[in-house]
């Protein structure tokens, strides 16, 4: 169980690092695409960030509710 969590942590951390590396190192290439057509993709990125923020909130609420449901089930 402990090992499993460690692997999970490592994977998620490395994904974040990869994103960060992608943004900082390949700036001229990847961001040039985002700058095309009058920087419209900057707006798209902003909308995507808001979307993911709300989705993450929903996931967390979902998890909390599942825990509560299990608690009720165990008590019955």
């Amino acid at each position: 169980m402990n090992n499993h969590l460690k692997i999970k942590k490592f994977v998620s951390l490395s994904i974040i690092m990869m994103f960060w590396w992608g943004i900082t190192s390949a700036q001229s290439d990847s961001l040039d695409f985002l700058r095309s057509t009058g920087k419209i993709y900057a707006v798209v990125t902003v909308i995507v960030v808001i979307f993911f923020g709300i989705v993450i909130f929903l996931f967390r609420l979902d998890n909390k509710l599942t825990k509560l449901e299990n608690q009720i089930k165990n008590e019955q």
Partner: protein
Amino acid sequence: MSIKGLWWKIGGALIFLVVLIGGMTIPTRSGVTATQPSNAKSGESIIISVVGYNTHFKSAQNHRAWLKLDLIHAIKSSQFIAKNENEATLTFSVPDQFPSDDQVQPLTLIIDNEMDGAFVQPNALFVTLNDSTRIGNGPWLSAALSNLNKSEGIKFPYRNILNETIRNTFFHVALWFAMFLLLIAGLYHAVMYLRTGLYDHDIQSASFNKIAILYGVLGLLTGSVWAKFTWNTFWTTDVKLNMTAIAMLIYLAYLVLRGSSSDHDRRAKLSASYSIFAFLALIPLVFVIPRLTDSLHPGNGGNPALGGEDLDHTLRMFFYPSIIALTMLGTWMATLLLRYERLKEKIFLKS
């Protein structure tokens, strides 16, 4: 489920959908993205190549262009050749006479046609004066800027550097406004808890504050993305950014505070008083201090407040609905949290 309690949720979602569709599909007005060359000497004839954005250089017929020195001094271009819709070359003969003897004179380029309306590129050309340049009006007064066209239809303003990202007003800026409204709701319930001692007020206050913090974090992230494309960095030392980050840290401590104590009564009292403190700290941090010093944000440090070209009536058409929609959706999310907390409380009381 009846429609009665549902209308504002559907309303919020629909208004946000309208903002999303309208905000992304309405075009921006025409503008100039680049001009070449940027320097000239007085008395010479120059050809400026212009790159436009959303322009109709080829299909429009009546092109006019000016180099403007100030309110009354301008010269008209002698020739306008369109390469394609977005590229054109303009010929100007820079006079050997200038109204003032400043060594370097910045000139603003104005282009006008019947399809795009008039649009400007500030400081498009810097003219260095020759030794032989005389002081006088010369041809400067004769080219009057008159009968400028206006582009038709609903279009968002074109701003240099901002370009299409002016649409972020509906998302990034509206997110902060909605956050503030949600924090007011949280503050109200915190005060009501301290007055009445009802536990329900405490969890209402916490739900609103939590969604407001989510909006605040998203506001910082979206602002960071926007800054990368306009200020060319994810984070600047701008006061508004740093002060808002401090305000968000104060609110993050609120979350820690709520998580730290298991005694309901104590937690409720502490977090209600703390959220009042956090709100009172937020106002000077976000609204007062940035106005006292230099800031890149509009409405701060001598910059004009949101208005004029930064927030004209076409932007307002979507900006205000976006605030309303995000507040409604935020309230919806807050009620979901609230219902969860109420359920948890019920189970806790039973056991």
